[in-house]
């Protein structure tokens, strides 16, 4: 008995009191409530996507536990081809965009983290300026058109290739690396590229993972730029399709149906599209989660 108490207390810092049963219960309740609050919408979305129309109507909307689960909604959305195509487009934009953005951000951040770079401060100020003031929709639209990027995937990637926030996170981290390490590499004859690739990057896995995730999520969610810059529906990304499906159930769409139009998709189909849009990012998170806290904090508190 005594031994177990010692073992228990040994896991706590010396200054921490022994937890009380009601304290633990309260924490458990609070955490349980938060987990439920997070899980409830997700579970209801998945459950509704697996429900029949009749069940959805009987429940007055979202379903929590489908009694007669069916994959019909998924069959419908994948049979149409538009969701599949948009999924492929989004994967393409997110993967290419993330790689391009991370490469560009790493190089810019590394370059501007070194002392003595000509014009470095000016470029840094411009980057910071872009965090405070955006050009606006119309100037960006005109820029994209003039650069010949209109109706290409590049329009979703190039205008926002480097995010000032991500750039600052990485630059701050790079500046915190011991300068002796980099200097010794230089003495050994390594150039900047070699130092970046062989020393800096291996030490920066955490912040780079985080920045990659930020970029990936941003590209995956590309909606407004896709709406403005992509004319061909075959190039549409998943968020555009998602919005189209989700809003179709609104009365606006019903207003079209007087002469026997195609009825709007049911809630199950809408939720199925939501699930399809959620899953890829959801799959990425667990692999990057361990880097997350470390990566953000390391960039955030050093400067």
């Amino acid at each position, binding site marked *: 008995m005594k031994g177990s108490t010692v073992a228990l207390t040994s896991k706590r810092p010396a200054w921490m009191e022994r937890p009380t049963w009601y304290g633990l219960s309260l924490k458990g309740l609070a955490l349980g409530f938060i987990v439920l609050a997070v899980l409830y919408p997700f579970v209801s979305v998945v459950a509704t996507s697996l429900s029949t129309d*009749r069940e*959805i*109507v*009987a429940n*007055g*909307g979202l379903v929590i536990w489908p009694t007669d689960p069916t994959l019909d909604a998924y069959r419908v959305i994948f*049979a*149409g*081809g*538009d969701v599949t195509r948009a999924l492929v487009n989004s994967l393409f934009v997110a993967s290419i965009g993330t790689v391009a953005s991370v490469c560009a951000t790493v190089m810019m951040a590394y370059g501007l983290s070194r002392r003595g770079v000509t014009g470095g401060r000016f470029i840094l100020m411009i980057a910071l300026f872009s965090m405070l003031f955006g050009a606006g*929709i*119309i100037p960006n*639209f*005109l820029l994209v*058109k003039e650069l010949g990027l209109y109706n290409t995937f590049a329009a979703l990637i190039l205008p926002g290739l480097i995010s000032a926030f991500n750039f600052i996170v990485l630059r701050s981290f790079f500046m915190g690396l011991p300068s002796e390490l980099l200097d010794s590499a230089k003495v050994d004859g390594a150039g900047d590229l070699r130092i970046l690739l062989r020393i800096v990057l291996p030490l920066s896995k955490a912040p780079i993972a985080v920045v990659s995730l930020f970029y990936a999520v941003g590209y995956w969610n590309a909606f*407004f730029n896709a*709406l*403005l810059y992509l*004319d*061909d*529906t*075959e190039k*549409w990304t998943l968020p*555009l*399709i998602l*919005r*189209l*499906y989700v*809003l*179709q*159930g*609104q*009365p*606006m*769409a*019903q*207003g*079209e*149906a*007087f*002469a*026997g*139009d*195609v*009825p*709007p*998709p049911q*809630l199950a189909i809408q939720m199925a599209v939501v699930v399809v849009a959620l899953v890829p990012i959801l799959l990425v998170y667990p692999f990057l989660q361990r880097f997350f806290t470390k990566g953000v904090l390391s960039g955030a508190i050093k400067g």
Partner: protein
Amino acid sequence: MPASRRDLLRTGLGVAAVGALGTPLLAACGGGDDAGGGSSNAGVTLPNYIPFAGPTPDLPASGEVPPGYYTYPKSLVRSVSGTPLAGGTVKATTMTFLPIPPPRGENGAWTEVEKRLGGTLDLTIVPASDYDAKFNTTVAGGDLPDMVLYSAGLNNVPQFAEATCVDLGEYLAGDKVAEFKNLAAIPTVAWQNCVIGGKLYALPICRNITGGSGFVNMRFFKELGIEDHTRLAANADEFFEVAKKLTDPGKDRYALIKFASTTLFAHMFRVPNNWRLDGGKLVAARETPEYKEAVAFIRKLHDAGVFYPGSEGFTGVQRGNAFTAGQVAMIYDGLPAYAGHWTNLRAQHADNDPRPFIPFGHDGGEGVCWQDNIMLAYTFVKKADKEKVKEVLRVADFLAAPFGSEEYELLKYGVEGTHFTKDADGNPVPSDLGTRELTVPWDKLAANPPVVYNATGGKQYTDYAHQALSSLLPIALPDPTVGFRSETQDRDGTKIAQPFNDLVKDIVNGRAEVSAIDAALDEWRAAGGDKIRGEYENAIAGK
């Protein structure tokens, strides 16, 4: 002075949305014969109406009531001779409410349509929910296509139209429209709404003129011995009693659902359509005693507990689901939603009997409805040389092919055997491929005149829908301000009305008293209501 077109979307689209509890101002897409042709538009010669000589309907058209068909016509008429494009290309931007179709080149129906057009129809399809953003950016970018649908979002429509778009009067006014037979079959009332700044600048996407007064599930009324859906009650008091009898919380059944109900009661109390013009003076609908009475009646119903609990915050889908599930006996929704309710309710329960609600007068007299669904939106044609404009209009003419024409069948159902087959009665039954490929929004560029037909609804649906339009259109009130413009309304109308509308919302939900309306009206007048009134009155007087 032209009308702002901001309200147009709220009409065609919004009739069904009708969320604006507390506002009878839902959308003034109306503009009847005597209202739309105001002084500033008086000099405009509209296209002559030349009816389409198509298959004989089962229920004839009469006045503004469209023809009705029990089954799909057996012999179709070719409405466009030759190929409109002759190798050319027309670019267009429009919106869609449906799943996106397979792209051009991978879409057999699109290819077939282009074969008939004799050229390329290059469409940019934008989700309706985001159309305004795309449209505005496209306009600002200065890269308009040959045809572009306009719904809302510009403050300076007349200036935009004058600078960028073709005056179609030169091509369509009077007898000139005869060159484009399908456009000539569009009713005059729709063309009246396309006059902007004293010129005919647009092609209408026409609708059924009125958005109606909602729907009832007669199954529940029949249980109370009420068989006549055109007269559910003799007056408001009797209706109050009926509503109480319909409500049975134990069975999770209520008479009505919130939010969607104000319009319905406004119709019962004969509230004017946005404004009432009386001897050159305008009275806003919200200022009328009828409106106050309607709000008081809704509050009385609220206090009696006949509204579905918690439905104040319901979305349109939730309201529709509650109606389908039999949780409510009446719902406000736009008449165009009838086909959807018809299908959904009957699939849910064999005894369900959805019918359009025909409003009766609160005092035993006649009710009214509003001309609030004349058009969905309209299409501008970009300025170009005459030949190009004519080419674009020939394409629009093709896309506006009426029901009963070969072109309509191609645009709506595709190619027989590939995109659809026919059932025993000759009604088209879309194949999977047809369902996928036929979602190209041709009808959001140029629309055919309305008809009453439902491929799966049969005779009963057509009878009910036709009867509803026959009953509703004669009592549909026009909005006297349509065709005229108030800059204050265009710019700030919604903002100015917001506090009033919020108050009404509070009243009908039991959070404020009806007596507070008078003070809120004073505030509305001071905040800009009187200014809006003055601007409209001046425009109507031709000042």
